[in-house]
């Protein structure tokens, strides 16, 4: 009976999805003429190179046009990490070390991860520093750096992350983001307004406040995600 109900429900959902999707012209150019923008997407695509001189339009939308949303996203991630830490926090005795993995990893994994760890860090830093030029940005770069730390935590039993350093990096990055927004509010009467010179398109230093904010977001996300992973990995197995 319940299985029948589930199948019925899936059929209803599938029917309405098909009906609503069948009216969308996938692959067709729905943006219209870029020189006379009528949709929001066309507006962003046509105005971004002139107004902000940012090559990656998605970054311009995420950090500048919708910068306040990004601040909200960052604070959601911060709250999630804080909540997890407050649930799983366990006071360590002085000098006590809870190993992240129970069995020592193989020599192959240890040597390989030692070799590849700096490369992962450099890739992550590249992704968030070049967020306004190439695909990627703060969130992606931060997640890549966190995977690098994860690799080290899993291959080395006694690899520890200093939690006070993580907290400091996280807080300073968050303060940087918020204070850049506040400076915009003071200088140009609007929160997160671009107050720096925008430079030339495709230069590393261009786009005003966008690279600064993305570097801050990258540090913040990397610190938060590696802190979450460290907290989770150091739970003692029952």
């Amino acid at each position, binding site marked *: 009976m319940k299985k029948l109900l589930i199948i019925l429900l899936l059929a209803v959902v599938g029917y309405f999805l098909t009906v609503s999707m069948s009216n969308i012209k996938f692959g067709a150019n729905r943006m219209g003429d870029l020189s006379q923008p009528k949709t929001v997407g066309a507006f962003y695509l046509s105005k971004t190179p002139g107004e902000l001189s940012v090559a990656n339009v998605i970054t311009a939308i995420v950090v500048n046009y919708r910068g306040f949303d990004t601040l909200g996203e960052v604070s959601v991630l911060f709250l999630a990490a804080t909540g997890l830490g407050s649930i799983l926090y366990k006071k360590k005795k002085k000098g006590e070390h809870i190993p992240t993995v129970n069995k020592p990893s193989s020599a192959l994994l240890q040597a390989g991860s030692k070799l590849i760890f700096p490369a992962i860090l450099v890739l992550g830093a590249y992704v968030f520093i070049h967020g306004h030029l190439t695909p990627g940005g703060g969130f992606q770069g931060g997640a*890549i750096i*966190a995977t690098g730390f994860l690799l080290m935590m899993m291959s080395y039993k006694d690899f520890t992350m200093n939690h006070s350093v993580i907290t400091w990096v996280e807080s300073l990055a968050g303060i940087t983001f918020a204070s850049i927004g506040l400076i915009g509010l003071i200088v140009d009467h609007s929160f997160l307004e671009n107050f720096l010179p925008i430079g030339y398109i495709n230069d590393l230093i261009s786009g005003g406040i966008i690279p600064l904010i993305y570097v801050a977001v990258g540090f913040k996300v990397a610190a938060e995600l590696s802190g979450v992973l460290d907290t989770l990995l150091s739970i003692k197995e029952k």
Partner: protein
Amino acid sequence: MLFYTIVLIILAIILLGVAIYAVVQKDLLYAVIATGVISLILSVFFFILQAPDVALTEAAIGIALTTIIFIITIRNTSRMEDEMPLDHEPNSESDNQVETK
């Protein structure tokens, strides 16, 4: 263009198969790795469909971080899925047994 369409169709079929495997599989470790494979195929999808930003996010978070968090959870709980019938009534004896395990 035709090449990409064929690749997309093949990937979509693999994606469906892996997704069904993840749902049906009773060994949760295999199911979690199957979800990781889903993320891998999805990130290839995003890249082919010209959304490299989303592809990067999916690659880093979907393949590595989510999978690892699930695996840590499995390490601290049980590996096999408990057999529970679909029309299972809550607060019966089997429920309490699961909690005290």
